[in-house]
């Protein structure tokens, strides 16, 4: 049922140098059901990743997105795949939102051949270029000018679409963000700077890292909007507004007020720099999935049992994907030397012992 209806957005938008959009979002039963399903799938996926990490099937860094799902889901609801998205290392759900599949995610996390980058990139480096997802970046802040560059290319190619560059509250202090924003503003690039403010950069609370943690104002001369990032419909409305602004007038900044339930990455218990009460408070009062569940029930779009069923279904999906991924083989050893270049001109790439292992790059 895709009959549209409107929902009031509870938390008021706050504008900086701009009139905020109406405090109301259009949606439909169908959309709300897909929000519920997609966010539940993401939540399950991240929990499964946590378990795989603990059983040592995932190595290295692994940054989970649970708690922040509404940002991804709401954003996708307002965008097309002509629009670009680029983000940092906390990228599993963004990948899913852009059309990636669970088995690709789990295979990649376990470094297998069927992963989204054949096991070469790992958790932090997911991409889906054909659907406008440009990664998956490990260096804090770097994705932001890269995003402005994607917006530059859209404008250069006269594509009427925008690029959404996502970064954290910690990254929000990075100089390259300000450098690229100035250029984006000078050149009227269709770039949307999206600060996912989950209130901590690793173990550092926002106010300890930023003199001014009002991130939607940090563009100074660039307009900004503060959004309840736990409310997928608020995000959808804000992103629609921002996309339009970006295409017609140039860059704009969104601050998404959100929260990560997990620690920063797997080595961080996530409980030394914040209280358990704080976490459970957010879970109880602001959880993005629960909000949609409530709305669905309120509007009598589905029953409690229907929703439980969906949760069971996605749980199964995730389990199946994990099982499938576990079957995926490790990448072929020859992958060590592939993709160093697009064009290798027959030069030679060397292994650790060059007299023992090397390859000619085509």
């Amino acid at each position: 049922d895709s009959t549209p209806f409107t929902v009031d957005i509870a938390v008021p938008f706050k504008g900086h140098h701009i009139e905020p959009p109406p405090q109301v979002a259009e949606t439909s039963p169908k959309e709300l059901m897909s929000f519920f399903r997609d966010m539940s799938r993401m939540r399950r996926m991240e929990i499964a990743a946590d378990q795989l990490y603990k059983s040592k099937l995932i190595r290295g860094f692994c940054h989970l997105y649970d708690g922040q799902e509404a940002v991804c889901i709401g954003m996708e609801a307002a965008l097309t795949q002509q629009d670009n998205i680029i983000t940092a290392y906390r990228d599993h759900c963004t990948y899913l939102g852009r059309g990636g599949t669970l088995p690709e995610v789990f295979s990649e996390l376990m470094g297998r051949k069927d992963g989204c980058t054949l096991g070469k990139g790992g958790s932090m480096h997911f991409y889906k270029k054909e659907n406008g997802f440009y990664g998956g970046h490990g260096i804090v802040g770097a994705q932001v000018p890269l995003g402005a560059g994607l917006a530059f290319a859209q404008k250069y190619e006269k594509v009427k679409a925008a690029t959404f560059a996502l970064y954290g509250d910690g990254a929000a202090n990075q100089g390259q963000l300000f450098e690229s924003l100035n250029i984006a503003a000078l050149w009227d690039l269709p770039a949307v700077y999206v600060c996912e403010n989950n209130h901590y950069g690793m173990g550092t609370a926002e106010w300890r890292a930023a003199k001014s943690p009002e991130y939607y104002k940090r563009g100074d001369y660039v307009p900004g909007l503060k959004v309840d990032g736990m409310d997928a419909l608020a995000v959808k409305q804000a992103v629609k507004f921002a996309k339009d602004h970006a295409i017609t007038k140039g860059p704009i900044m969104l601050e998404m007020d959100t929260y990560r339930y997990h620690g920063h990455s797997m080595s961080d218990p996530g409980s030394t720099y914040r209280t358990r009460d704080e976490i459970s408070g957010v879970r109880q009062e602001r959880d993005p999935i629960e909000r949609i569940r409530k709305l669905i029930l309120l509007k009598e779009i589905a029953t409690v049992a229907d929703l439980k069923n969906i949760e069971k279904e996605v749980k199964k999906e995730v389990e199946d994907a994990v099982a499938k991924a576990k079957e995926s083989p490790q990448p072929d050893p020859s992958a060590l030397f592939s993709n160093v270049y697009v064009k290798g001109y027959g030069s030679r790439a060397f292994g650790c012992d060059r007299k023992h292992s090397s390859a000619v790059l085509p």
Partner: protein
Amino acid sequence: MQMNVRDALNSALDEEMTADSKVYLMGEEVGEYQGAYKVSKGLLQKFGPERVLDTPITEAGFTGIGVGSAFYGLKPIVEFMTFNFAMQAIDHIINSAAKTNYMSAGQISVPIVFRGPNGAAAGVAAQHSQCFAAWYGSCPGLKVLTPYSAEDARGLMKAAIRDPDPVVFLENELLYGESFPVSAEVLDPSFVLPIGKAKIERVGSDVTVTAFSKMVGYALKAAELLEKDGINVEVINLRSIRPLDRETINQSVRKTNRLVTVEEGWPQHGIGAEICMSVVEESFEYLDAPVERITGADVPMPYAANLERMAVPQIEDIVRAVKRACYRSASGK
């Protein structure tokens, strides 16, 4: 016909921008000012402000933008006023450009050229004189080109722009005004040089001298002087630091049995060291004398003319090293 390096670069940019509308140029003063060293002269007038973009003095920002646009499929040419300033943006050159094709398993290629003057100019002191050939040359995912002559400049620039991978293109300010003979073939818009191939600038039999950029000219002059002493020098213009043409170098050394490397950069972990290692690895038994290296002095660049002269390789340094390599007999080893 004669052509200077500046015009060679300018014509290459012009032709490739004409040939491919995805190619664009950005950097400080590349447009209205016509380039700090006038390499981009006339391009703004010809291609307009959508394709020739003056940037603020924010290297990290505009380099990131260039790389991002290459992710999308554009072919940016990012000019650094000099490569010293690229240190502010080196994270994007390495982490965002060089590694992405690999990390994405080939999904996102990065067809971009980073160009500008590299190494010492004249009298610009320590912060403006660094050679970055060895640093960039160490990084898989990058290609690193170092033109010497007008032919090099044209052929390698055109190759770099057409190449689907990130290319670091290291020019030399002191060569911009230098003129070289160029053939009709070199002037043809279809002219291009192969990436990863060195050029034997001078065939010789007694000793191999490798050099790149400005030092190729010094090596050739040293070879002329040495000719008078009866030493017949083979001079290799490396052209490409990465991929390094190990084959041409080793073949030459197998013929001459002696090797002198020349570079303007600092010695430690330099191009000379790599070439020595490569020859020891592949042609050890052919070496009749220790490899000699001539490099920039192992100090930050001083300003005073006399000190500066001591800090950058001179022709006499090459001559002296070649003589050492040659007068040492195989048995003296």
